[in-house]
């Protein structure tokens, strides 16, 4: 008899889960209504999708020079913004770490990092296009800001997790602040910092193919122009090249990360 009780307990229907699911369904219906998504529109859309895909194949690599130029510019943007971002993130992260810096330094720096992280890189790119003019420079600046937000935040968190024993040991030898940072703090976080930097290079490479949409250089501008001119076979070629580039980058950075471990 206890077995039947146990069986009933084991497969008891969960009313909170059911109510939650119903709530999600109701919200979805409400949001679909608000966003004006109707079945008629979707079915027309799926027909269009068929035509769209048909025009995408075969990919047209005839303008490969334009494609290569854009890809190289994206690569340059990614490299420069990562290097600049890392160089700026290093002091920023140290200053934002609450165990090393006093609160009156770390709090405002943390605010700066949070703002860098909250604004999407495309929005930052728009502002820099206004300030620096069209071209790759705006893209470099925008992605540098994005890298600062990401790397500095994670670096600060890594620094906050270090063991203070080594820092105290170096301090006890009478070393100055520079030597304490160099021999007490950095060796503990160097490998993680390299990991963040690699990840950021990967993500900057992805994002550098996009900033061109707002005029900040790279392959994105070519992509957007091809979209506007309905050159969907060229769009397909660009997309395939971007996917290939990202795939190779992911492979390489995965190898490097495995080698570092």
């Amino acid at each position: 008899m206890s077995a039947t009780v146990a069986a009933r307990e084991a497969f008891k229907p969960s009313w909170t889960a059911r109510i939650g699911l119903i709530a999600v369904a109701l919200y979805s219906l409400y949001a679909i209504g608000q966003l004006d998504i109707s079945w008629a529109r979707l079915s027309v859309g799926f027909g269009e999708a068929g035509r769209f895909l048909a025009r995408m194949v075969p990919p047209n690599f005839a303008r490969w020079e334009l494609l290569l130029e854009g890809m190289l510019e994206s690569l340059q943007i990614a490299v420069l913004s990562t290097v600049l971002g890392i160089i700026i993130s290093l002091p920023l992260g140290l200053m934002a770490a609450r165990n090393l810096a006093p609160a009156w330094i770390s709090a405002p720096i943390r605010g700066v990092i949070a703002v860098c992280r909250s604004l999407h890189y495309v929005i930052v790119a728009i502002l820099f296009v206004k300030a620096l003019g069209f071209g790759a420079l705006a893209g470099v600046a925008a992605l540098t800001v994005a890298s600062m937000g990401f790397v500095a935040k994670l670096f600060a968190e890594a620094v906050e997790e270090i063991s203070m024993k080594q820092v105290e040991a170096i301090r006890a030898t009478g070393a100055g602040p520079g030597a304490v940072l160099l021999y007490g703090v950095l060796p503990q976080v160097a490998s993680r910092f390299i990991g963040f930097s690699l990840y950021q290079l990967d993500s900057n490479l992805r994002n550098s193919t996009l900033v061109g949409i707002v005029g900040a250089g790279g392959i994105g501008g070519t992509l957007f122009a091809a979209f506007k001119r309905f050159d969907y076979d060229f769009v397909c070629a660009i997309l395939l090249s971007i996917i290939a580039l990202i795939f190779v980058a992911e492979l390489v950075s995965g190898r490097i990360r495995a080698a570092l471990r």
Partner: protein
Amino acid sequence: MNNTMAPGMKPLMREWTYLTPAEAIGRWLVWLAVVAATVWAVRSIDIIPEFLADAPEQMADLLVRMWPPDAAHYYPHVHAALVETLHIATLGTILSLFLAIPIALMAARNICRIPVLNVTAQLILVSSRSVNSLVWALIFVAVFGPGPAAGTFAIAFRSIGFVGKLLAEALEETSPGPLEALTAAGAPWGSIMLKGVWPQVQPAFWGIALFRWDINVRESAVLGLVGAGGIGVVLDDAINFFQWDRVATVLLAILAVVVIAEIVVTRIRARLI
């Protein structure tokens, strides 16, 4: 005593170094590669010196034009667009969860035992992740026409790769015990999934969903730049008309929503996990 030492043995007089020669050369090569890449990028990138020279001036001009933000513009235009953005992000996340669950089940090697399906699912996940949400938005604007429908689908298709990958990893880490017990008891496939697998991946699933929702709120704010609805449309209009005080209002609104979303997600995660 020293002279009892065997003739072949040298006294321990090694010089200790931090790195072996191979490691030292390896590090040096990495630095060389980094410097070479940077130099190549700096030398060949297309930078117009005149633009760089007047950058501080332009920046100051931009800030002066942005201040003070046009608060009157917030209601109703920006507010309505902001709500639309949140709907796009939330609905897109829900849609992506429904689409990602079957693909994740297909990709998990301990649940789907057919290698062809595993590889196919992985391929779908990788291509979803490789295409940026703005590119997805461009594609769906071409498919559905401009509007929030395109944005919702762009967010959903972009999220499939992220959610599916993390969910498949969580599925592969489940313990096989409950599955085997339910299989031995003769439970049908649906019951095995619901009672054997789901309780094990549930915390990871909610964590992934919340995390992706947070990212989607951020991403849906820019989809409007390519016409896919949300607050990006208002931002794009304000920029095209050079109404920089309105741009400032929109940017502050986006910043506030993103920060609030992050705080909400952190709170819920802390309670869930």
